[in-house]
């Protein structure tokens, strides 16, 4: 059997009742109200796995004729090889450049040109450090000729154009994370087959064309990180500080020196090892007919090879026993980013820590915002966010504190640690706990408002947490947390010895530049 259903869900009843999105000729936003209600959603999820290992989660929501798709590939920047940091991200970008059947004026000729290009690149690499200038020149000429030939045959925008012509607008996107890569798009609901065609072909026979220009574009984005403020700079430094051996210490977009020497051949190898169907999970949420979509999914995606099992183990990360600290000079006002190792996505402590962090810094009356901003008048920003997160290793959560003029980052740190210690020793008040639990419920409901975030939630819980049902257990899990548990996890995870502190120290020149404007 080519289709195996994992949990027993409502598929039978849907088919037996003959419910179909095409049943109504014209619908309005008013009907059927219960189809979008939270209690009903879990029952409507169809979860199944193709024989090749590709998992699908379908959630029909009759309503506006739109469908959101999210595919999670269990291959992220943590799988980049040493010296090839950024390859997963570059590969992700090339997967928008078309396939053997889409994006070429003549694929056979283009393939020959691309193979010649690969060979020329290999030749050039083998001449590294040579003093034979004539050979070097010949190899470069060979590479440039192949490059021109391939570029002349490439129609790489056809792939994204097909999505955008179908109405995807600006929803077509992808994101490389440490643990995996997300491919997302939303389309009018009559374009489901187009998505099946393009998405399956993308992961079956990508051409990986335009490698050189795309690498240049990615290198531009690396340069641009410095132009977008201090956020990226500090986060990069925090990862380097908080992880010693684990590849979480490398930023997903990679590094210039690694990207500059990457070859298309290496990316082909990465694709072959990391993009088999066994690494894929897709959620489809919106206004569609389940039976029809299951049929399409089977027809298009069962063809995709399972791919090899991954033989990959992350290096053991030594436990952190003391605080780590670094200062980073920059042309910007001072701020501090503090990172702690936290439990993984599905760890039993995750709900209690999530709740504890909410009490500390995610609302206007949270303890740190109250102490540092509202009452203290010392900070202009108190923010908390996850830096990395997965199931393989502990996540990292970060607290960003920005002082108002005349206040030092050291003072903000000191007060923040006092509040953390107070929460650990005294625990939350019953009112605080109730408010945080209520906030958890409201947040969950807000996440159900639109199809794209629901698709993301399903995939995230399935791929990272091992069970999509987890999305619908969030409120229960948070409501089960006690004050004592909050105390325990705050003490366990936010202690001094688990801290990693990156302080931005303004360069003297910053004042000059700021003044000039």
């Amino acid at each position, binding site marked *: 059997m*080519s*289709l195996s*259903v994992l949990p*027993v869900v*409502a*598929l*039978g*009843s849907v088919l037996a009742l003959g419910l179909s999105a095409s049943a109504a*000729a*014209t*619908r309005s*936003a008013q009907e059927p109200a*219960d189809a979008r*209600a939270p209690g009903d959603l879990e029952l409507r999820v169809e979860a199944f796995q193709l024989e090749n290992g590709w998992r699908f989660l379908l959630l029909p929501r009759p*309503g*506006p004729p*739109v469908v959101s798709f999210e595919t999670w590939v269990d291959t992220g920047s943590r799988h980049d090889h040493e010296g090839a940091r950024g390859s997963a991200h570059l590969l992700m970008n090339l997967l928008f450049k078309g396939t053997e*059947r889409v994006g070429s004026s003549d694929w056979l000729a283009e393939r020959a040109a691309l193979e010649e290009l690969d060979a020329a690149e290999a030749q050039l690499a083998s001449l590294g450090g040579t003093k034979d200038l004539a050979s070097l020149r010949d190899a470069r000429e060979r590479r440039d000729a192949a490059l021109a030939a391939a570029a002349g045959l490439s129609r790489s*925008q056809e792939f*994204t154009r097909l999505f955008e012509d179908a*109405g*995807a*607008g*600006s929803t*077509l996107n992808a994101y490389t994370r440490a643990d995996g890569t997300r491919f997302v798009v*939303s389309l009018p609901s*009559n374009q489901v087959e*187009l998505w099946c*065609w393009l998405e399956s072909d993308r992961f079956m026979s990508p051409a990986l064309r335009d490698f*050189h*220009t795309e*690498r*240049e*574009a*990615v290198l531009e984005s690396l*340069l*641009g990180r*410095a*132009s*977008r*403020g*201090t956020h990226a700079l500090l986060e990069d430094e925090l990862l380097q500080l908080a992880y010693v051996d684990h590849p979480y210490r490398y930023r997903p977009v990679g590094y210039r020196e690694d990207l500059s020497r990457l070859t298309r051949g290496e990316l082909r190898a990465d694709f072959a090892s990391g993009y088999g169907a066994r690494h894929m999970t897709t959620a489809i949420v919106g206004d569609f007919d389940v*039976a029809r979509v299951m*049929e399409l999914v*089977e027809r298009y995606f*069962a063809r995709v090879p399972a791919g090899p099992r991954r033989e990959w183990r992350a290096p053991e990360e030594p436990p952190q026993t003391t605080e780590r600290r670094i200062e980073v000079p920059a*042309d*910007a006002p001072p701020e501090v980013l503090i990172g702690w190792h936290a439990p993984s996505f599905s760890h039993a402590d995750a709900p209690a820590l999530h709740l504890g962090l909410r009490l500390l810094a995610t609302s206007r009356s949270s303890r740190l915002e109250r102490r540092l901003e509202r009452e203290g008048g010392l900070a202009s*920003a108190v923010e908390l966010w996850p830096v990395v997160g997965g199931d393989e290793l502990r996540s990292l959560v970060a607290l960003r504190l920005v*002082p108002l003029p005349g206040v030092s980052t050291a003072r903000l740190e000191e007060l923040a640690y006092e509040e953390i210690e107070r929460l650990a020793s005294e625990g939350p008040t019953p009112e605080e706990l109730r408010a945080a639990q*209520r*906030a958890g419920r*409201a*947040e969950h*409901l*807000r996440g159900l408002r639109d199809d794209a975030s629901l698709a993301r939630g399903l995939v995230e819980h399935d791929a990272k947490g091992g069970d999509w049902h987890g999305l619908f257990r969030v409120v229960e899990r948070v409501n089960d947390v006690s004050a004592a548990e909050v105390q325990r996890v705050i003490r366990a995870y936010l202690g001094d010895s688990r801290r990693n502190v990156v302080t931005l120290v303004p360069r003297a020149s*910053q004042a000059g*530049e700021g003044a*000039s*404007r």
Partner: protein
Amino acid sequence: MRGVAWLALALSLGTLRGQAQTPELPAHPSELRPPPLQPYTPRPPRRLGLGRGAELLVLEDGTLPLVEGALVFRGGTRHDPPAQAGRTELLAEALRAGGSLHRPGAALDDELDALAAAITIRALPEAVRVEFDCLSEDLDAVLEAIGELLIRPAYPSAEIDRARRRSASVHAARASSARETADEVALRLAFGQTAAPPATDLGGVGREELLALHRARFGVDRLVVGMVGDVEATTLAAKLETLLARLPRAAAPLRAVSRNFRLPARTRVYLLDRPGAAQSEVRCLAPGMRRLNRDFTAASLWSFAVGFGGSSTRLMASLRTERGLVYDGTLHFTPGWEEAGCVFGAFSTRNESVGEASAALVELLRESLRPFSDEELELTRLRLQRAEVFQVDRPRRLLDRALDLRVHGYPLDFWERHAERLRNLSPEAVAEAVARYVDPERLTFLVSGPAALIEEQLQDLGEIVRVGTPGSEPPGTGAELSPSDPAPRLPSSSD
């Protein structure tokens, strides 16, 4: 029942297997024949009068026990006099942080957090929005809190001072971002202002001034309320009417500070030196329009084809796919509701390719003034029409669309008329409309980067004017244009 489900499941799987073996898959997506999209008629929000000029737009949607919405007051940051730029932002910040006389900011924060609700006040160029989001069971409490904020605001001096300091800190952080700085400086220069904002006297703005501004801005006659979620419209209107009964009319008329695009006699390149920057920022501007303008539809289609419609636009094809010079970029009209926006192009590129990328942008603009082929026009039109469903697929989006129209006095069938015009656009009509605004010989560029590395590359682009260092910027940059400079042939502002 479980047995029935299993049987149906088994039958269905059998069917799926059978179908999987039969038909050949289309060799190319162009062979697909998608079924017509189900006709979908979004339910428009209900409009109810609230008395004294205020009105309510409401979309009842009981699928989730949530309500969100906004009280939108006409008049925003563009109504601040230049010497008091930022005062509407200060008003919004200090009102939210300071709370009301009955419920000070800290108490308000505690109450809202206990309800898992949020109230946010945002100062926009053309309006101030008091937004909220809550569980539907808490709607009354949240509305009551908003009513108190509007009717009996506190504006304690300590919060005003804190808001001022926070604002200064945020601006300082923004100044460290080359991108945000380039955006801001480019817009200022293109609209005839100096690169750096003039000194303001906001430091002297205290409680009394803010209370006066509050009375001038938050008038019931300037209010449109929008709400979506688990509510009943008539009951809600009655509640709001009672709540707002004590909110007076605005105490002063709105006076917008007009901002006119200054068209240079020939392309001008403002150069902002950032020694040591690893990458340069390029901004390119031309005059624009407001949405009510008859050219808006043509400008929208042009923008979608040239630089705003995702990753397959002409801009991305030229600068990223063909040349690898940028990672992302944009080039499009940015129309305002009440004030003419501009054409805004933006990208970052390495210092050594600033000249090449900028020249490519000018060439692209030149090309874009030739009528599109019938095929490109039709495809762009289809993309816009097909993506239209994402403007109305969520109740909140529907509501916001209607709110914008009501707040800015646009006809309620504005988007239907826009869609009708879109259907009838010809390539020539698009080219003619855009040519009224875009003159490739008279663009305004702002390039920030290490001048020593990039200045020479910019020589052929236009007249270079250094900005950002004392004494380098000509006084009254915009005003230096002689009155005889031909102004853009702007059409009438309304059809």
